[in-house]
């Protein structure tokens, strides 16, 4: 089982020792370097991998500067160099931080899918921000005076649990749909992803600070070593996905179900999953059957079966209407295959009509316990 988090003083001493060892720099020098960005009464909070006992000599130091008089907020961090130490500074208005926590709390109370609204796979800035504030080390200033009566760590952890549970659900569905459609590489990639997301959700639920997907395996080797055996069979994808994907996907779905108790079968997930068209529309030129996306300047030639399937979707579910969305339940086998292929091309989105609520996850866990 994982180690418990050290006290703030111990964490600051450990952080100081690490940047001294890696870069010959002190926290005081870091503070001097960013002094010009400071405002009266603000605080400097260190988050990120170095603050969480992860990281290495090439890791950057992630700082948040925020306080009651801070007014500007930037989409991209200000990058500073102190010798070999790279410092990323996020200067944020305190109101923006409060607003982000308010939004997170509201999202956790509802059952709408997060849809990556606090950070998707590409950009996890808000998820990381929530954790930097809740779990970071205040190295200067008195710390943020945030609204009382809220468990900031629980909210930050809850959003990551929820986000990763929803990602796990999506990956599990895509793995199975891709398998059915004969897309074996997509199937095994998503199956492994689902297991990793299940494990990331489990780790977040233990209130270990979030630092992104890349540290998962280091955490399985240290703070969450009891979970490592779950991951072991999925560390590498099969050498021959065509042959081994069915077994690999089945085992991954079973591992996710064991971890979180959710039924992740296609039949269970289909009612809350929909395909969403971008701007795809069929076109006929002579005997050619084309599918066109004007927005992306993309065009595909359909074979007869594909053209018939698309026509059926247009007739049955209005697939070419503005913002057209149709449930996976409305798709037969041929339609599912065509839709997953179009999703793989980036021209059909996967949309969820409901989220995976924390209440649902806790209820499942308590019933199983």
């Amino acid at each position, binding site marked *: 089982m994982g180690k418990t988090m050290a006290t703030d003083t111990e964490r600051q001493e450990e952080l100081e020792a690490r940047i001294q060892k890696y870069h010959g720099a002190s926290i005081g020098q870091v503070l001097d370097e960013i002094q010009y960005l400071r405002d009266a009464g603000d605080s400097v909070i260190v988050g990120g991998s170095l603050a969480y006992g992860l990281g290495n*000599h090439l890791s950057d130091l992630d700082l948040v500067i925020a306080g009651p008089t801070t007014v500007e907020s930037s989409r991209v961090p200000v990058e500073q160099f102190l010798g070999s130490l790279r410092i990323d500074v996020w200067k944020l208005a305190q109101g923006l931080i409060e607003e982000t926590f308010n939004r997170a709390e509201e999202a956790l109370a509802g059952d709408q899918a997060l849809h990556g609204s606090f950070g998707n796979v590409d950009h996890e800035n808000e998820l990381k921000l929530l954790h930097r504030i809740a779990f970071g080390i205040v190295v200067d200033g008195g710390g943020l005076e945030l609204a009382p009566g809220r468990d900031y760590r629980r909210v930050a952890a809850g959003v990551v649990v929820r986000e990763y549970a929803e990602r796990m659900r999506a990956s599990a569905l895509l793995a199975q749909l891709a398998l059915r459609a004969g897309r074996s590489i997509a199937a095994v990639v998503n199956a492994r992803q689902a297991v990793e997301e299940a494990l990331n959700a489990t780790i977040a639920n233990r209130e270990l600070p979030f630092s992104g997907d890349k540290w998962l395996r280091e955490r399985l080797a240290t703070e969450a070593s009891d979970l490592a055996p779950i991951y072991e069979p999925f560390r590498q994808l099969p050498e021959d996905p065509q042959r081994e994907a069915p077994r690999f996907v089945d085992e991954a779905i079973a591992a996710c179900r064991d971890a979180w108790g959710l039924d992740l079968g296609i039949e269970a997930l289909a009612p809350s999953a929909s395909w969403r068209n971008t701007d795809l529309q069929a076109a006929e030129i002579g005997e050619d059957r084309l599918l066109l996306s004007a927005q992306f300047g*993309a065009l595909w030639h359909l074979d007869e079966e594909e053209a018939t399937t698309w026509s059926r979707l247009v007739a049955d579910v209005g697939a070419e209407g503005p913002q057209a969305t149709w449930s996976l339940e409305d798709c037969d086998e041929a339609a599912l295959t065509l839709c997953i292929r179009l999703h793989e*091309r980036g021209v059909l989105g996967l949309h969820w009509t409901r989220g995976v609520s924390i209440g649902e996850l806790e209820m499942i866990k308590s019933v199983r316990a």
Partner: protein
Amino acid sequence: MRASEVDARRYAWCRSQALWVIGMPAHTFLEDVHGAKEADQDGLLRYAARMIGEACAVALNLALNYERPVPSPAMRSSWALEQLQGHELWQPCWDLIRGAEVDSAQEIVERCDRLIAEVHAILGEIPNILTPEGYYPAIGMARDWIKLMETVGEESPLPLEWMQSS
């Protein structure tokens, strides 16, 4: 004078995606690979190597096949690998994406270095924004791409804040 293989909008969109959205994170992951090797962080090493495999496959598909749009992260690997079948870099990309466990840490680092060098030879070099010497040249180059994107009427994948003078 040599004409672009595709129209200006597609060229600008695909190349800028390849270089900046996909290519730039590859620098970060390469740094992670080297940092992880030296710190004996095997899990980080293998994760970063996998992401390099994916980033390179996607960047190659954009640069060689001018495919657009780029699908969601869940589907990028399979999308890119399908279009790259028969290319000499298909196997190196797939080996890293797969996360083959038989290699030593040193061998993985070498594979990553080699693949990124080969992809850069196709795509062109971009300054490493993660280094003091590469930071401002990278921002300068980003501005050039943003201008090109605006000129051809495409949305820039880069933060427009980079257009502001510092």
